[in-house]
């Protein structure tokens, strides 16, 4: 068994060493598909991400009652009834319960959604809707926030590129690092689009985390190849890959543990995006960045 595994690894290694310039096509094709997907989606909906209406749009229903319910239970049962996530919070004044606030980011523009929500609340809290007060939260503030977030991400990316360029002071290797980070984010974004994930505020945070994680492995690779003298370029790439895969594996292990143990939808979305991003980062770093830098070193030599 161990022998077989070793054989496999060696085979893989040989393929990688000899065919890196062909494997390079994989991330590039993925990047192209991702750009087309995002472009198409943008031309159709005007948005590069499926924005969860949770970016602060939807309904809030205030239910005055002094009857006590388990927040988790009504939350689950209403969510199931309307097939959309709701959050329930308790309202109180001077220690006495006044009622509950039920918030849902289900699309307020769509006819029938409110009716569905109110009916579900009536059933679960055993109350008549006459007592409820309903507020509709527009997504306009959400879109302002969203635009700002995207702009901030763009500036963050540009600043990061400048630092990388200053740090390595050579054009091609810096570009390779920046391209790999760019590919990672764009491909991950496209995958979340295709999966139909609705990106909320937590999702934005997760994409930002990806900038940090993906640059880590790229800087590791470039430093090892450019600054080390021992061994061939391929040896250095493989050495870096060994460290790099440990990095990715630990993060992946932590993210999977997080996904398994967290009951929170918010944390889950962050973890799912990070897991997708790490897999994409593996491809972007070791097939794209590595290919560019090995070709660059060959030319220089």
């Amino acid at each position, binding site marked *: 068994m161990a022998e077989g595994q070793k054989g496999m690894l060696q085979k893989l290694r040989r393929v990688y060493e000899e065919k890196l310039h062909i494997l390079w096509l994989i991330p590039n094709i993925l990047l192209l598909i991702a750009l087309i997907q995002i472009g198409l989606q943008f031309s159709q909906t005007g948005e590069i991400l499926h924005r969860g209406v949770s970016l602060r749009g939807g309904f809030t229903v205030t239910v005055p009652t002094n009857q006590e319910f388990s927040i988790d239970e009504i939350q689950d049962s209403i969510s199931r009834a309307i097939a959309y996530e709701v959050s329930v919070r308790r309202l109180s004044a*001077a220690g006495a319960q006044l009622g509950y606030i039920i918030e849902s980011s289900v699309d307020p523009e769509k006819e029938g959604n409110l009716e569905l929500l109110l009916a579900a609340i009536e059933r679960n809290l055993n109350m008549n809707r006459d007592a409820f007060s309903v507020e509709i939260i527009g997504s306009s503030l959400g879109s302002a926030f969203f635009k700002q977030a995207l702009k901030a991400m763009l500036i963050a990316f540009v600043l990061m590129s400048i630092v990388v360029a200053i740090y390595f002071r050579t054009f091609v290797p810096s570009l390779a690092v920046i391209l790999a980070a760019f590919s990672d984010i764009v491909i991950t974004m496209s995958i979340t689009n295709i999966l139909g994930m609705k990106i909320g505020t937590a999702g934005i945070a997760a994409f930002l985390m990806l900038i940090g994680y993906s640059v880590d492995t790229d800087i590791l690779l470039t430093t090892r190849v450019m600054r080390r003298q021992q061994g061939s370029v391929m040896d250095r790439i493989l050495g870096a890959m060994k460290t790099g895969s440990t990095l990715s594996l630990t993060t992946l292990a932590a993210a999977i543990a997080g996904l398994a143990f967290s009951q929170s939808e918010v944390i889950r979305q962050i973890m799912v995006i990070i897991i997708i991003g790490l897999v994409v980062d593996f491809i972007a770093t070791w097939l794209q960045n590595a290919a560019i830098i090995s070709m660059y070193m060959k030319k220089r030599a």
Partner: protein
Amino acid sequence: MGKIKQIFQNIRVIIMGIVLILAIVAISPNPFSQGVAIRSVTPNSSAAIAGIENPPSSIWPMGRERIVSIDNNPIRSEAEYYSLISGLEPNQTLNIKTGKKLYKLRVKEKVNTTELNESEDRVIEESIAVNETIDGTVQEINRTIKRVIRVPKIKREVLGAEDIGLRIFDAPVTNIRKGLDLQGGVRVILQPEEAVSEAYMLDVIATMEQRLNVFGLSDVVLRSASDLDGNLLAIVEIPGANEEEVRDLIGKQGKFEAKISNETVFKGGEDITYVCRSAECAGIDPARGCGITESGLWACSYRFSITLSPDAAKKQAQATEKLSIVTEGSQRYLSEELLLFLDNSQVDSLSIAADLKGREVTDIQISGSAGGASKQEATTNALQGMKKLQTLLITGSLPVKLNVVKADTISPLLGEEFLKSTLWMGIAALLAVSAVIYARYRRMSLLIPMAVNIIVEVVIMLGVAALIGWNIDLASIAGIIVSVGTGVDQLIMIADEILLGESQEIYDWKRRLKNAFFIIMGAYFTVVVAMVPLMFAGAGLLRGFAITTIIGVSIGVFISRPAYAKVLEILLRE
């Protein structure tokens, strides 16, 4: 054994240890802390009269006064407090024992007064000055006379006991402040006085947000909403803050005007280019200071300087040009004062020195005062009042007046369950990471320092958060996850470079670590610059995330990573 001793004698390890201890002191965890902590005291309430002081909002959670018992009944939770407080009778006396001292509190009556449509005669006492001849000289003396006036009849009904005015919460067990989504807070719904468009409402919300930010309340959720009749509303959620603060800051339109002879010369907002908030030109007025008033209460004066725009200065010059000069003793003033109005009520009047007539003055000193039961409380209130006024001057007035429709305490969006599940998640993640690291290296001498390093880093991050009064919310938790994640990455890089050096028989440890730290610093700078634009992007989520991440990775790179590298060097060196 010698190696362990070496580790604890190393300067980098000692520095990390000191920072860790400071962090724990800052958090000052006390899982056994009991009672309920005082969040705020309503002015003029029974509690305030009994001498319980309103804590400043900057106070550390563990530093808040705690109620230990009421009338010798121990108070262990919010529920116990409310059950004791619910059946109070007017004029009843309560003995409230706090961690500081024992207060004797008399419950006020709740009175409803209505003005009736008839009037009655009332005898009042009045003091008048009369000239009288005493011992041959004319002297002015005060004499009290009785006079009868007609006043509207007032019906006075006692409705029961008035709220004693304490806002409390279950005593915190650490100094870590939890954000709105983890702890809950106040939810205020505001409605504009007149109908406005949605775009207009967004302007209003932007001003409110700026106001809260300038005031120093972060972690605020502001949303525009509409009810089913189509009325536009603003919903504001603020963690832990007290209602009065919210009402003062956003319920007020904040229309600040300065008038000379009934003509507006400048307004808050655009006419004011700079409001001084540093200690040299803002604070308790050194010329007037604090003093005891006739009623036995303390009062403190504050002052701060502002700079007017050239246009406003010109307008003021035009207004003062028309005034005449009056002489009062040795001082010469202009005939009219500069009157300051906030939301149409006068807050201050300033005499204008004669030599300023017709001159364009850009620097003006604004002053005001506030009272309290003790000197300390009056000082706190004065500074707080100054901060509010400064905030209103900087942000200008809201385009429309808003009325508070509802203000309730709201439970957190994520709450206890979320925190528990996050804690479990953290433990699971740590175990999973440890398993991967052990599978890769099979050396406890690498794994244990790594695990210790991660835990120490999280504690230090929380300590810094407690120290700077940062609210830990979802975004901060995400930031902590990133910092720990990149931290683990860097620890592995250090370990790998050391092992690589071992296999290539590089004996110089400095050389072994040089590459590792080159990579780490590169990764560090990229993450920090990536976070900077997020700090300035509007919504709180991004700011919280960015700041926590920057703090986290900085602690990692400058404190715990060097210590880790040294520990490995000591452990692995032959």
